[in-house]
């Protein structure tokens, strides 16, 4: 009989995975699954004894918010949409040895994303929205995505400031342009692509908390070493509580396995509980705390919206 599971993520966030019982869109990426163990011998792996979490774990995340949408009126009568957005990146330094988590750095930036060739910076009250020119036609739906670039740049910038020897940097989301950072893993909460063949996917869904899949290599442009693991506190559905972790392809398989084991003893203790976080357990506790702090740093949206309205009214 088919069993049913309620997804632990609140509905407004979408599901932790898209589709019925696993990542929906099969990926065309080339994968190599034989590096850690033979493909035929794939099985859940627990961390070997003696692997201890690092004393210091750094977690980086960014938040963005649209403060207002604008439209320009060019001299020739044309109009371009604009997106006034605030975004912030921060890094939490979890000193597990000392038992203290603190905000090691945070930066807030605001920008006006538009394709308009003529518009200047918008000064709303005490804040300035620097113009960020977007190439192409600049439709509103595409502007939203263009915030991610500057935000990632901000995250890279901020994460470099807090590093110490022997720490582990956890980046929220795929590594993308951050592969050059040492001792860094990317933490992917939602599984949209089905990378593994169905036979090996069964190994993933059979994972228990504190277990991981063997390391495999992703052959995409942004690829690298990757592995799946299940966090404690999942509902029991096949793909609930499953996260994918990745690290730089420049590392050797031994280094990748070492990072994989390190992540296996480190990340589960950060897993959140469902009544406190609508995206539990994947949304890690430090990340959730960081996002709350960063949202606070973004400023009051009503205040900014009013300031923007006033500023644009004054311009016309």
């Amino acid at each position, binding site marked *: 009989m088919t069993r049913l599971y309620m997804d632990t993520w609140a509905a407004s966030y979408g599901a932790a995975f898209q589709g019925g019982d696993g990542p929906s869109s099969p990926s065309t990426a080339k994968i190599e699954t034989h590096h850690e163990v033979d493909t035929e011998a794939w099985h859940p792996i627990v961390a070997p004894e003696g692997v201890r979490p690092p004393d210091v774990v750094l977690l980086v995340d960014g938040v963005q918010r649209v403060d207002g949408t604008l439209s320009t009126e060019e001299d020739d009568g044309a109009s371009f949409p604009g997106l006034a957005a605030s975004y912030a990146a921060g890094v939490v330094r979890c*000193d597990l040895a000392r038992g203290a*988590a603190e905000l090691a750095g945070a930066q807030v930036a605001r920008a006006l994303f538009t394709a308009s060739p003529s518009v200047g910076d918008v000064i709303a009250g005490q804040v300035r929205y620097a113009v960020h020119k977007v190439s192409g036609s600049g439709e509103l739906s595409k502007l939203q995505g263009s915030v991610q670039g500057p935000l990632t740049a901000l995250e890279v910038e901020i994460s470099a400031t807090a590093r110490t020897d022997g720490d582990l940097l956890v980046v929220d989301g795929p590594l993308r342009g951050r592969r050059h950072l040492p001792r860094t893993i990317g933490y992917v909460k939602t599984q949209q692509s089905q990378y593994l063949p169905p036979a090996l996917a069964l190994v993933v869904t059979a994972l228990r908390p504190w277990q991981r899949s063997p390391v495999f290599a992703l052959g995409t442009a942004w690829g690298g070493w990757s592995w799946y693991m299940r966090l404690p506190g999942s509902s029991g559905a096949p793909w609930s509580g499953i996260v994918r972790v990745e690290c730089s392809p420049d590392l050797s398989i031994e280094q990748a396995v070492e990072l994989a084991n390190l992540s296996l003893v480190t990340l589960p203790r950060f897993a959140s509980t469902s009544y406190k976080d609508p995206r539990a357990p994947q949304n890690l506790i*430090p990340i959730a705390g960081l996002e709350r702090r960063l949202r606070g740093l973004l400023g009051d949206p009503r205040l900014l919206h009013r300031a923007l309205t006033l500023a644009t009214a004054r311009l016309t």
Partner: protein
Amino acid sequence: MVHDEAVVDETGEAVGRVLGTADATPLQFWTAVAPGSYLQLDDVVVTKRELPGREPVTIAGVVTQVRARHEGAQFDSDVFAIADGTLPALVQEAAEITTTRIDPELYVPPSPGALVRRATGDLRAAALHFDRMEKRVPMGTGRDGLPAYLNADFLDGSRGAHVSISGISGVATKTSFATFLLYSVFRSGVLGGDAINAKALIFNVKGEDLLFLDHPNARLDDATTARYAELGLPATPFPDVRVYAPPRAKDSSGTPDVSSRLAGVDSFYWTLAEFCESRLLPYVFADADDERQQYTMVVHAVTAHLARHAQPADGGIGIDGTRLGSYPDLVDYVVARLTDEETRGTWAGSAVNTGTVNAFARRLIASKKDLARLIRGDLAARRPHAINTAESAQVTVVDLHNLPDRAQRFVVGVTLKAEFERKEKAGSAKPLLFVVLDELNKYAPREGSSPIKEVLLDIAERGRSLGVILIGAQQTASEVERRIVTNSAIRVVGRLDPAEASRPEYGFLPAAQRQRVLLAKPGTMFVSQPDIPVPLCVEFPFPAWATRPSEAGQAPSATLRSIVQSADPFAVVGGRSEDEIPF
């Protein structure tokens, strides 16, 4: 920026900024405490508010509440994640400031974000209004270790008088604070030349605690001496003390009934002649002035009869040809006259029925046991035995602790009446007389009326102009006559019972201090004075005088002098001025 502002900015370290997430009002506001700084309850802080086109307003206040919380935590259990080092959170402390002074008086709120500084030196003195006090009495140190002062104008009767001290017995150190306050008044120099003639009358109701005021405290250490020096006081015992104690019961020689202090104690008593002449009979009864009682008529009739007919006779009195040599004799005699149908009319008036007479007789007979040792007919009349602060030392201690309830009331009532009448006759407020009386609720209860209560009410209401200052102490101010409490300019609270602390009598304490008085340590008092809108929390130093026999150091030489030796040996025995030869 003007010059004096720069000076202000230099004094006092910045400890935080005015909060903007809670309302800031001119009278109360919250301050976020900066990382690495701290504020404790009672700290004095100051902030500034710039105003367009006017001089800036300085807002000073004291910390009345401090709180710390995790910012960034949503659930109570988040504290474990934070302590575990997984959830980033900020510990943020905030302090509630109750304004004590706004200068100039422009009641504007401080602006959120304004720097808040710890007030020191002149700023602290200004914040607590010490700079406006012309005469200030040190009353201990604040929580910040600096002296706190009492405005002497509200103590010496210039603008107010009387002190009311409340607190649980034993823990609240009410009498210790009262004696320290007296010491401070006498020794700090605020009374100027009047200090020499100012007197204090202390009733000792509990143990022999106050009998050693003139003995140095053997446990006094250098740290305490230094604390006295900080307050500008010498750490010495009271220099000039005279101790009175009641005569020992069933002792015909009238030696004072004390066990620990052997030298320098004089006994006090009243002769039968004085008892009759000064009309002291009403003070025998606890409710002699109560209008609901029928027998009070008899009390006053008998008192008048005794005053009219009693003649001094060889220590005792003679009345209608009968010589009475002791108080029990007098009681028996009066009761016999009243029960006799023939004499009742002359003693109590004609309209009195037997029931009323019996009510009187019953109470009078009951007093025999308690008062026999105090009202004497067997001791020499010329032997000094009266308590008179004008002729006594600077501090007069009257020991009551061995006396039963009724006798205590009699002594307090009669002594205070005599002192008050003497001051009334003198007609001037100077020199001052401080009266320290513990268990005020017993002498001036909220309900009912008695001659003693009338005397205390007189002192509370008219004493200020006559220079009689009442320092009253009680466990519960709610049980003391309201007019006495309301007439006290200075209110002091030590450790209180939780049920008592919530009564309206302590409305002068802000909510946070009402909670704090429940756990006030011995030696910590909350002092409310009219000048300062917030009661100050003070700690007064350990007494420099002995408070129990075990602490007493070397006795002062003056105590060896007996009062009998100071009596005039050539005074005419039983001399009465009207008996003198008229030429």
